[in-house]
């Protein structure tokens, strides 16, 4: 990767972190409601992955979607506005934290039914196969989602039909309060892909460069072979499952140990050690992000609420 691209990845990761930190404050202040799942700790995963796509490649994910939305190029203004339920959000305030999408940015949504979007991802790829192009669909999901039937049906279909899907399991070690080994018959999630004869790999999700490299390799394979690929990415969420999680299921020491592996810290050190850039340049990125996030909050707070007419809009495409 070139210097500009590396610095852009750093910018994106810091942007996700700050948007979510502000989001958490706004949630505590009662300005955001519903369920909000923070991506803090996992920023390197979607940042590295999505950096490896071409704009024509599609992305679809679960409800932990703020980072993915930002990485896909949806403006912080829109993300913040959606969190606040404003009409200027990309889902017009109707979706909220869990439902961010932008067809223009080829981001096909955060989805709140666990595993529900996996067959849909196969369908996105089916549509592309039918159109005879070689677009790839990147489908992200959690470790917990690999235990539901949807996952297995989708993987089987993708392999059987040669669909261009990059299946990405973000293994953050828990589905809500359930540790992987308490819910999954096999400890390594990628073993499930083996069962479907699907090419697969595993990578450290705290290192954005490694994620980028693994994703690039996987996407080359998918594009060329017309076959799906399964990538397991090991990571950790630093915060609770969603806002208000009592976190009785894991020990503070464990969380602390992972937090010492902060993906932004690791990347910061990498950029300095490899002399890609200077501390000053990284500080400037921080400042730029702070300003952007402050503006996004201002934009969201001053945006209009959706109207009663909006309540009835978009139920159907035809009237």
């Amino acid at each position, binding site marked *: 990767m070139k210097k500009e691209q590396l610095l852009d990845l750093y910018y994106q990761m810091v942007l996700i972190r700050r948007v979510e930190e502000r989001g958490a404050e706004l949630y505590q202040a009662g300005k955001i*409601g*519903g*369920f909000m799942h923070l991506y803090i700790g996992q920023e390197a995963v979607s940042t590295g992955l999505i950096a490896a796509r071409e704009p024509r490649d599609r992305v679809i994910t679960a409800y932990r979607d703020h980072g993915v939305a930002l990485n896909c190029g949806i403006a912080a203004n829109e993300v913040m506005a959606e969190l606040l*339920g*404003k009409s200027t959000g990309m*889902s017009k*305030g*109707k*979706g*909220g*934290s*869990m*439902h961010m999408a932008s067809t223009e940015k080829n981001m096909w949504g955060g989805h*709140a*039914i*666990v*595993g*529900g979007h996996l067959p849909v991802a196969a369908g996105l790829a089916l549509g592309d196969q039918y159109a005879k192009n070689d677009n790839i669909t990147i489908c992200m999901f959690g470790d*917990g*989602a690999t*235990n*539901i*039937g*949807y996952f297995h049906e989708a993987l089987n279909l993708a392999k059987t039909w040669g669909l261009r899907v990059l299946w990405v399991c973000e293994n953050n070690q828990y*589905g*809500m*309060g*359930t540790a992987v080994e*308490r*819910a*999954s018959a096999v400890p390594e999630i990628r073993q499930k892909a083996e069962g479907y004869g699907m090419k697969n790999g595993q990578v450290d999700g705290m290192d954005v460069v490694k994620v980028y490299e693994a994703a690039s390799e996987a996407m080359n394979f998918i594009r060329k072979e017309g076959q799906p690929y399964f990538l397991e990415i090991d990571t950790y969420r630093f915060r609770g499952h969603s806002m208000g999680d*009592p976190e*009785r*299921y894991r020990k503070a020491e464990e969380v602390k140990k992972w937090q010492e592996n902060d993906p932004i810290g690791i990347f910061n050190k990498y950029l300095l050690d490899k002399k890609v850039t200077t501390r000053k340049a990284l500080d400037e990125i921080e400042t730029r992000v702070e300003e952007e996030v402050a503006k996004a909050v201002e934009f969201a707070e001053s945006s209009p*609420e*959706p109207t*009663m007419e*909006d*309540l*009835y809009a978009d*139920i159907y495409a035809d009237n």
Partner: protein
Amino acid sequence: MAKITMREAISQALMEEMDRDPAVFIIGEEVGVWGGTYAVTKGFYDKYGSDRIKDTPIAENAIIGAAIGAAMVGQRPIAELMTINFAFSAMDYIVNQAAKLRYMFGGQFMLPLVIRAVGGGGRQLGATHSQTPDAIFAHFPGLKVVSPGTPEDAKGLLKSAIRSNDPILFIEHATMYQVRGDVPEGEYLIPIGKSKVQRPGKDLTIITYCKGLELSMKAAEELAKEGIEAEIIDLRTLRPLDMGPVLESFKKTNRAIVVEEGWKSYGVGSEIVSRIYEEAFDYVDAPIIRVAQKEVPLPYNRTLEQAALPQVHDIIDAAKEVLK
């Protein structure tokens, strides 16, 4: 009488029945170590251990399917769906298996199974996580559907459900766990399939259940200030439906509204109104009004969501309308 919350009432019912019958066990997502997503089974894991409080993978089909199988061989599982919205991920097991296995095999199987599920909107959870699809489930013969509106009923009905030999969907409301109410001291059961007068009145009949009861009671207080006395009938069980108290009340008041949180079309109200027209047509003095959710998937935005959900003022307006 002791005043306890809905959460405590449900929790007590579960614990009493688990203590009473070793065949009773709980199976579902986050019921154990987490203590239940709505903290209903808090402390259960420590008390009963992992054999009786079974944390499952995220696998709704397997949860309901396995509960059905265990019930068929004589256990009494209580399967918890984290929310009723995930019942759609287990629909085949609820509809094609639980509701039919006994009948289809000439009564050979018994399915002493309870499915607890939390439903309801009002928490800004968006379209897929806020539904009140109770009526759909009440559509299927072979399944019983219970949905209490007070702590007393919740406790008594859940205990009966656990002792019942049939598959029962027990629907709770996500915004009602803190609702307080009097509960009798000591053991008691409330029979499934019995509606109840929750408030006596003479001017009109309000037929409702679950969240609708909470709203209707508030509306009735407001109406009383204007000299209007509403009689409130709480269905408590949607299938089998007990029309007795409904018809008795209606024959007295001749005017009624039905209040439910789910969508109006093909809803609980549609059934109740039809039954009144079929069974008490001569007593009808005014068209019966249904108060229900607007015909939209629930939006995240708080103002829009509240506008789509039935409110106390909608009930007051409807009551005045039928009294015109």
